[in-house]
Every structure is written in C-alpha cells, then in structure tokens.
C-alpha cells in the first residue's frame, strides 16, 4: 500500500473542524479504491466518509472518527458519449464532471444547490441531494446505474453495471441513496447521461404558496413538461407572497410552444409572468439555489410530502415559528412536494420551531419525511436530530448490523434510528 495523503490537523480543509463535535480528527485521502480498502481494513476506528464536506451535518451529527476523504479520488474512469454513460471516482465534483460532459453536448441531469460549493458525485448519492430539474429528469437515484463500494470490513463490492438497463442482483447502487455514509464508502459511481437541451426559458412571477401549488398541480395535469417549478417565500406570511419560477427546456420549437401554452395557465392561476433566458435565467436559478443553502448559522431542514400538501407545510411552518418565537422561511418545489425550511432566532426558539414543524409534517400521515440539515451546535444540543423512526427502522437496523456490524460507519449520523 502506498501511503495515502494524510492530514491530521485539518487546517488545510475549510470546514474540517465543523465535522464532528469534540476531538480533532484524522483525515485520510486514499488515491485508489484499493488504498481506500486497505486503510479501512487496517483500522477498527469509527469512520466518517467525506466528499467536499458540504453536507456533513445532515442527519444526526456524527461522533469523532477517522475521516476518509474522496479528495484524491476524482478521476473520470470512462465516458462513452454514444452510450450516454459515464463512470467516475466518487470524489469527482459535479461541476467538474458537467464541464467535461458539456464538451459532448451532454450533462448529468442533476442541479443541486451545493454544486457551486464543489459537491461531489459520491456525496450527492449518499445524501440524496437534488435540484429543481429533478421534476423532469428524476433525482440521482434515477440516474445511477452502478457503484463500487468499500464495506466497513474493507471488502470491495460492485453492484449494478455500466449499462443503463440491468436487473442483475440487488440494487445496492440505489440503496446508497440517502444512506448518509452509514453503510459503506462509495468509491466509484456509474451514471446515465442526458443530452443538453438546446433551449431554455423561465417564467417568474410573485404569488402565494397556494397559487404556486395550484399552478404546479395544473402543470402536472397539462401536457406541458416543465423541467422545474420553484417557489420561495418572500413575506413572513407565505399566503401573502413569494417568488415563483417555472422553467421549460427542449428544442427551440418545443420551448416556444410550451411558453405560449404556459402563458395562459400562469395568468389564469397566478398572474402575469416575466420571461427570462440566457445569462439572466442562469443568474436567476443560481439565486434560487442560494436560497437553499444558508450557511452554518442558519438551521435548515428539508421535508418531502405529497405535492398538494405544500400550502399546509407552509402554514404549519409559519405557525410553528410564530409559536416558538423564531423566524422561518420556506423554499418549495410544489410539483415534487419537496421543501426546505430555514429557521433563525434564539436557539431555544429555533429548536422548538423545528421540532414542532417536523411533528406536524409527519403527523399528516401521508408518508412524509423530514431531514434536519444544517444548524449551529447550540441548536443541535437542543433537538433530537432524527426524530421518531418509521416502522421500517427494524429492517434498517438489520441491514446496518449485516453491512457494518461494529457500527463504524458514521456513528451517530442516523441518531437513535441505528
């Protein structure tokens, strides 16, 4: 084994200190899959897997552990443009991958808000992060076709394959989606690609969360194929106002036709829209992405619900925040039923507001989920990060015992669930 790049002080890495509560940590940076396997096998310490470190706080905050970073696992392994597939090492930043793919007129159809912060493919798979255009292309869950894992005992295992269509064996690739580093180290990922659309245009207008949801439902029921519908609260009362953005992509003819058809729907349900293209459109979406990422001082949580529950999610948030004495703001994808809430205010109030909002979202009884993302340590100390486990936690624990019997992978990340 060659010695992996090793960093014991963490100073060279911006947010290393924010990884865990407590003791300093060791960061290992294997340069090959075999090296990663060797170092994982060589220790019995707890392990924390890290890409760009943009989402280390998602879920429960992990206990101190040896950090295994994918910083030196950034190679493009194979890009077959004609097969519309690409294989990469897990540490490949998404934005770097997009740059390579764009030369062939292709892209990985994923636009998470953390892309600009250097989010890696492995980290995106482990966190299940996605962006506005999930509406059209699905999430990373729908785009991964193969994976190489290093298990907690150092065993290297591949699942899936290099072809888009494949049903041989268990889908361990998708199993990693949302696993938050608790099952295995993701070393390599194979992905399916899409052609870059020729044209794109975005309508924006101001409307309430109810109008945004009605519009999203109407768009879903129409033959139109929007690639994104985003709404961001701009007023303390979500019924009073917010910004809506609706994006269409495709061939020039298709986009023009959709724009005409959408114009009617928009003005009927929400109001007169402004249309944006080119750089203006790019900036607009970058600003919307920034709404989803607020920095370490803000407590942020995501929720997934039925799309039509969106206005309820908004009013429950407003109520929870008001009752607790905190301030909260919502950003939604009403057509997908995905929401991000940002809480600010006194730590106690933020903690109470979050927990009460989570309880009301989960109590609606429609299989909703809530994930605590970012928060300052003071808030973390006051919340149960994971909340009540679902009934299926029995299977999760059983899987964890089989794949990571000593509980080495990200101990504490799934809190009481594991």
């Amino acid at each position, binding site marked *: 084994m060659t010695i992996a790049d090793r960093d014991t002080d963490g100073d060279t890495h911006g947010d290393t200190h924010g990884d865990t509560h407590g003791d300093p940590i060791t960061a290992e940076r294997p340069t090959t899959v075999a090296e990663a396997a060797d170092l994982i096998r060589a220790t019995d310490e707890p392990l924390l897997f890290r890409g760009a470190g943009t989402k280390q706080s998602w879920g429960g905050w992990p206990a101190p552990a040896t950090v295994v970073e994918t910083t030196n696992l950034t190679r493009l392994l194979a890009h077959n443009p*004609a*097969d*519309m*597939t690409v294989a990469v090492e897990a540490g490949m930043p998404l934005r770097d991958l997009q740059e390579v793919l764009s030369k062939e*007129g292709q892209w990985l159809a994923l636009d998470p808000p953390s892309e600009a912060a250097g989010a890696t493919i492995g980290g995106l798979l482990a966190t*299940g992060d996605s962006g506005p255009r999930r509406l059209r292309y699905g999430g990373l*869950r729908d785009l991964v076709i193969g994976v190489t894992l290093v298990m907690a005992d150092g*065993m290297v*295992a*591949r*699942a899936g*394959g290099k*072809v888009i*269509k*494949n*049903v*041989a*064996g*268990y*889908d361990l690739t*998708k*199993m990693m*989606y*949302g*696993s938050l580093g*608790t099952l295995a180290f993701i070393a390599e990922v194979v992905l399916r690609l899409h*052609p*870059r659309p020729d044209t794109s245009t975005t309508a924006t207008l101001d409307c309430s969360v109810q109008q945004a949801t009605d519009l999203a439902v109407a768009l879903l*029921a*129409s*033959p*139109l*194929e929007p690639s994104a519908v985003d709404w961001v609260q701009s007023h303390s009362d979500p019924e009073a106002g917010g910004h809506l953005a609706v994006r269409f992509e*495709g*061939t020039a*003819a*298709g986009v023009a*036709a*959709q724009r005409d058809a959408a114009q009617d729907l928009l003005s009927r349900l929400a109001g007169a829209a402004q249309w944006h293209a080119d750089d203006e459109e790019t900036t607009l979406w970058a600003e919307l992405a920034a709404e989803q990422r607020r920095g370490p001082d803000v407590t942020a949580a995501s929720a*997934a*619900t*039925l799309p*039509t529950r969106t206005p309820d999610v908004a009013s429950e948030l407003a109520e929870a925040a008001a009752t607790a004495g905190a301030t909260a703001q919502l950003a939604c994808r009403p057509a997908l*039923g*995905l929401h991000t809430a940002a809480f600010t205010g006194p730590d106690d109030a933020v903690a109470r507001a979050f927990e009460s909002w989570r309880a009301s979202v989960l109590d609606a009884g*429609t*299989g*909703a*989920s*809530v994930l605590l993302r970012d928060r300052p340590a003071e808030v973390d100390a006051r919340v149960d990060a*994971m909340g009540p486990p*679902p*009934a299926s936690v*029995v*299977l*999760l624990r059983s*899987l964890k*015992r*089989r*794949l990571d019997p000593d509980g080495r992978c990200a101990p504490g990340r799934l809190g009481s669930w594991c």
Partner: protein
Amino acid sequence: MTTYAAEYLELLPERTPGRVSSAVRRELGRLVSEGGLISEPAQLRTYECDGLTGYRVTPALVVLPATTEEVAAVVRVCGREGIPFVARGAGTGLSGGSLPVADGIVIGLARMRQVLNVDVANQRAVVQPGVTNAGISAAVAQHDLYFAPDPSSQIVCTIGGNVAENSGGAHCLKYGFTTNHVYALTFVCPDGSVVTLGGDALDTVGPDLRAVVLGSEGTLGIVTEITVRLLRKPESVRTLVADFPDAEHAGNAVSDIIAAGIIPAAVEMLDTLAIEACEKAVQAGYTIGSAAALVVELDGVLAEVEAEFERVQEICRHNASIHIRIANDPIERAKVWKGRKAAFAAMGRISPDYFVQDGVIPRTKLGATLKRIDEMSRQAGLRVANVFHAGDGNLHPLVLYDSAVAGEADRAEHLATAIVELCVEQGGSITGEHGVGSDKACSMLKMFSAEDLTVMARVRAAFDPEGICNPGKVLPTPRLCGERPGPYRPHPLEAAGIIERL
C-alpha cells in the same frame, strides 16, 4: 480462486426445510379466507412453473391470501415452521423467479387485485399486487394518466411481479423501470411483520430500502400494496417503422438518433427472422424479407415531437433505409406494437421450440455483438432470431430449435447461455428485464465477483436470515451451479429427476 467466499456460503446455508404437515395445512386453511387453499395434486401442478416452462417443481401447497393481514399470517407460520415460500403474481416471469421450492408453499397474490386509491392531483395510485400492469393504466386513463413501465406481457403480468422483477419494457429508455415509478411498498417481512418502505412523498430519510426490494425477485419479502407514480399522457405520440438493408445500418441509425440529442420513447429492432414470425402471427404490416426493421416512437410536447420526428426520418434515410412506414393514427400504432409485443410468442410460427434470451450490451457494441451472435449461431447450426430494445442495448436473441431432434435442446440452451455470457464480456449484463431467477443464478458468477456476491448475501440475510423467502433464486449456490461454473452441465435437480427442461 474459489468461486464463493466462505462467508457467502455461511450466509446461504443449505437448510432442511420445515414440513408442510397436515396440521400446518389446517392452520393455513383457517388463516386465509375461503377458497384460498389449494392442495389437490392436479391443481398444484398449475403452479409448477412460471413463464420459464423448462423448470418445474410442484409445491407442497398453494395459498391465495386476500389481504395483507392474511399474507402476514401465512408468512408467520412459514417462519415459525421454517417452510420456504415463493410469492407469485401471474406467473409470466421468464427467468423462473416464481419457480416453487420443492416441499415449500406458493403464496399466490392473484386474489389481491384491487385499485385501492387514485390520487389524481398528486398523480399516484395505491394498488394491490395482483392488479395487472395494463389494469393500472386502464383504471386511470379517464384522468389522462398512465403507468409508464410496459413489459410485453402487460395485459396479464401483475404489478407485484413488476416490482419483484423491476420490469421495464419498450419505453424504459426514456421513462425508466418500475423502480423509477414506485413511491411506497407495504412489505411483509419474512418474519411476518408488516412495514412500509418509502412513502407517498418523493424521499425518505436514510438508505433507500424500497430500492433494495424493487427487483429483488421475491427473495426479501412479499409486497402487498404498491403506491405507483402515474404520468400525464403525452400530448403527442409518433411512431414509424423503417426497413434497412442490414442490421448494421439500422444500428447506425439508432446511434445517430441518440447523437442528435433525441431520446426516443422507444427504439426497437427486429431482424428478418423476427419480422417473418411476427407477420405470420399477427400481420402487423412489417415488410417480410426486410433484413432489419426499426420501430421508433417519439412522444412529448407536440411541437417538439413533430420537429424531432422529421429529423428521425432524415436520419433513417441517411442510413440507407429502404422504406419508412408512418403510423398515422392510434389504430395503426397499436398494430405496430402488437407485432413487436407478439414477437416472442410468434416464434412458434417458425420453429417448434425456442429459448428467449435477455442480455444487455453497451449500445455501441451492437454491430460487433450481432456479428458474433451470427457466427455462434452458424457454429451451433441453430437459427437465432433477434428482437431487441435497440435504444438501451437490451437484446432478446431467440434461439430456435426442435426438441424432437436429439441433442438439439441441449445445444440451444448452451448457445443461449453463451450469448448472455458474451454480453457480459462486452461490458453488459446477464439480464436487462427478465431477471436472474432460477435460470441465471449461475451466470451471476460471470458478472459479479465473490466479494460482490457476498455483500448481496449480507443484504439478503438482513431481510431473511433464515433463508425461507424464495430460496435458490438470484444468488448462485454450489448445489445449483457447482463450485466452478462453466459450460452447461445437466442441472443437479435434472440429473436427480426432480426437474426437467423443455
């Protein structure tokens, strides 16, 4: 290197199954509602195989529960007694995934065929596993919605089976597989407990257990309710059939379509033998004698589809297409698809017997692979018809033979296995949609390493530590495959006279 890791063998031990005693039979009879117990030998034989008719095992008992609670109660008894069980939908699977286990129980889900709820605004439906694939789309058609996965057997195959096999179909190049269209599963664990995997919402917190169960071929538990994703019917659908002088030109046309940034809803290729068989069977209007035909379907927003449809025709002509037939109305389009979807069954018109194979290659290896299959076919002295999903490289070579000719069935099976292993050599997969089942468990050794399989065995053990849930499927065992897999040898169960092939 030995084929199996020691841990793997420990995780998949050979166990002596519990006995379906008369007491167990009586108990199960009380647990399921009337008409839910089948124990007459003649009736049991109805369940001895699925669509892979070469493998046959008569189960000890068949139960047909009517509710999730009944399924759970039956499974609890199986767990307590250590009796292996196999879930079964319509029995149309082509890989022997629902082949019964000798002395085990078949849990048929055919009586659970209700559409429980349709949420039009949120484009979701909750259905029981015995609802047919086409039945879901029929139930929501009035709302302009449909269920996208469309396996060729969609008229009869059930959503429960689709979930088990992660079924695809002709349209999965654009729309994905069953796993991309399921939000939640009500799941009976092998110990009889009932949990929900996934949820009505898009994401859950933690590892995606729903994704593990999807495509697990009934080896992890039994799904008794499915929340499916529905799609709005596209505004426009255009379909054409283009004839080409040879498969290479047809393959190049597919590559050019993809390179033009067009993702067709479907691209299917039929070779001359397949065309002949389809025409004899259903007269779908394909050109007999054409060396290769492409069925290309585009769907989506009208303006976009129209422009791209023109472009596809140009590309076909540019690649020496001799004749392009455009389906101008839904009736004509249905006819084109009837021909394509009847392809497997149609082989009976040109050959007494045939094996349906299912393998995947990277699409760009199409030309080379077809050439190699042709050579292998000549060497074996057997005809091979080709029908495939050309967009995603999913081949369905049909190996034609006559079981009345001594030795021909063996040679045909050998050829079918060699073809699928060729797919793995090309960087592909042993199965694109039919599943591993009983048929290809041993071929898993060609595609995955001992370590890969060990991790899969760990996952299996996490769900089913006692190994009673559809044992002998998906994961190879030395008993099924021998220590070193190689060219076809008689199946041990065959040699023992327990099962027989075609």
